[in-house]
């Protein structure tokens, strides 16, 4: 009997190895300075005690995609384990003069601009390797930016789940309802990644959408 049990266990292990379900890969997308890394840091701090990367008021602080594997989020409805990819801000233009206007010197600005262009390319390439996207929008800005339109279009074309995080609702000029009206076909949670406002609702929605 012991031999049969052993064979059964071996088969079971082999089966698991062959058909092991990969964690869903979820990309955090959005325009520069929408709060993507702030949200990634919030998620990681809440569930792993770690952080993803540094944040800055100067755009394109994240210029390389960062992946964190096996982040388990527990909600009332159960738990979900995800691989989270914090992507560089998407843009259609990058002018180093804008970094100089923020106080960086010319060489530093040019270097940052070059790295930012590479970061955008990386973010675009990741679109082909994801199972879903959290699109972070700055609720104080116009929601119909090209970056938002292009990311939403790509998710719809691939028939992949998308969750909109209307960020920065701690600011008085924020209007999450403008975002909801702009893209009513997708679920949206209004949050402040910085202050943690509504973050539990976001986790519930993440579990529902990507589970």
């Amino acid at each position, binding site marked *: 009997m012991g031999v049969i049990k052993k064979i059964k266990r071996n088969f079971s292990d082999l089966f698991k190895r062959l058909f092991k379900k990969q964690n869903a890969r979820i990309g955090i997308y959005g325009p520069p300075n929408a709060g993507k890394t702030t949200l990634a840091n919030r998620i990681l701090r809440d569930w792993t005690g770690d952080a993803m990367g540094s944040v800055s008021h100067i755009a394109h602080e994240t210029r390389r995609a960062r992946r964190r594997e096996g982040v388990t989020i527990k909600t009332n409805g159960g738990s979900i384990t995800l691989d989270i990819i914090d992507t560089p801000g998407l843009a259609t233009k990058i002018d180093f003069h804008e970094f100089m206007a923020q106080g960086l010197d010319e060489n530093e600005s040019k270097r940052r601009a070059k790295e930012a262009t590479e970061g955008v390319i990386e973010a675009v390439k990741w679109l082909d390797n994801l199972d879903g996207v959290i699109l972070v929008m700055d609720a104080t800005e116009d929601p119909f930016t090209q970056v938002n*339109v292009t990311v939403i279009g790509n998710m719809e074309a691939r028939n992949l789940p998308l969750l909109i995080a209307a960020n920065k609702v701690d600011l008085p000029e924020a209007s999450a309802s403008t975002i909801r009206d*702009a893209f009513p076909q997708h679920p949206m949670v209004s949050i402040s990644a910085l202050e943690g406002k509504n973050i539990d609702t976001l986790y519930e929605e993440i579990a529902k959408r990507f589970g």
Partner: protein
Amino acid sequence: MSMMQGFQMDLISEHRLAEMAPVEKVRFIIDEVREGKILVLEKGLSPEEEASLIEMTMTLIEPDGFSGIEMESYPSEVDTSILGRLLKKNTIKTRMTVIGPADQLKTLRKDRNMISALISAQK
């Protein structure tokens, strides 16, 4: 008679773009925009083509040279037909799109059915 100053704006029909492969479309658009032209695409680009255009734009940005594009398209519409649902692939209905050099075209306001832009004749 004085020379007329201004910029060139080309209105590209759906048919003209449909004859091109995705990579040709992206190349065509980027070449035209780098020459300083403003393009209005009757039917726009697919979301994947928009992403490719962003990618190629990034490879061509140079300090004190080409700084990128301004692109504005209306949100696409999803055609959720039964066949599309069966194939698990959505058909996207693309819509009119304006593309130009970032230093000459600036979007002033945009909503679901209106794009308002400022075009500068000088860089």
